[in-house]
């Protein structure tokens, strides 16, 4: 299955990457997506994750075509 990964704000800057397209076989969680996409980088504390623009926990499982996003705490308003 193929998914899109997106990064925002300070995370995008520190990774030097705003998005990635990944292909997986089998069941994967949001946490797995991070591991595959960033094998050198431990998952930062306080990170937030969304699948298809809804907040999810890091253990949420991913379906084909999903858009997975990682970002730091929000600071709008």
């Amino acid at each position, binding site marked *: 299955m193929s998914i899109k990964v997106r990064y925002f*704000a*300070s995370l995008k800057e520190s990774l030097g990457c705003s998005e990635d397209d990944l292909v997986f076989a089998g069941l994967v969680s949001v946490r797995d997506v991070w591991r595959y996409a960033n094998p050198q980088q431990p998952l930062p504390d306080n990170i937030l994750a969304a699948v298809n623009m809804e907040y999810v926990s890091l253990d949420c499982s991913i379906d084909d075509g999903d858009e997975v*996003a990682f970002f730091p*705490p929000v600071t*709008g*308003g």
Partner: protein
Amino acid sequence: MAVVIVQGGFDPWQEIQGYQNTLDGMSGKFGATSVFVGTMRDFNAGDPVKGMTLEHYPGMSEKQLETIVAEAQQQWPVLDSLVMHRVGDILPNEPIVLVAVWASHRGDAFDACRYIMEALKSRAPFWKKERLGSEDGRWVGENTKGYKSV
């Protein structure tokens, strides 16, 4: 109910006036309007700030704001609401966010407006990067709480 992401400046008071004028059938029905406007300050965390850039997650920011407004409608009898949030480059003294809620009674208007604003601060995917001096920008770490005892 409207949720608007704005690129560029806006005058919150004109926006409210304009939106209210479009509310057909609301004339005489609303007794209370509660409004919050967030404006950029020229200082933060002890430092003078020259400007900032607001990044967002297009699509998700609208979706989250609409969810938040729907939650407020479920909890209080809201007649209408307007939420606007600016993105892009901003200068001090310029408005960042506007939340306006129309209701029959003042308690509902106050409660719903504050609920939307607090939820927006904690859940809507916007990020501020401040320009301090001649240096690079500084990402704002986390929003402060809007209630004293939360």
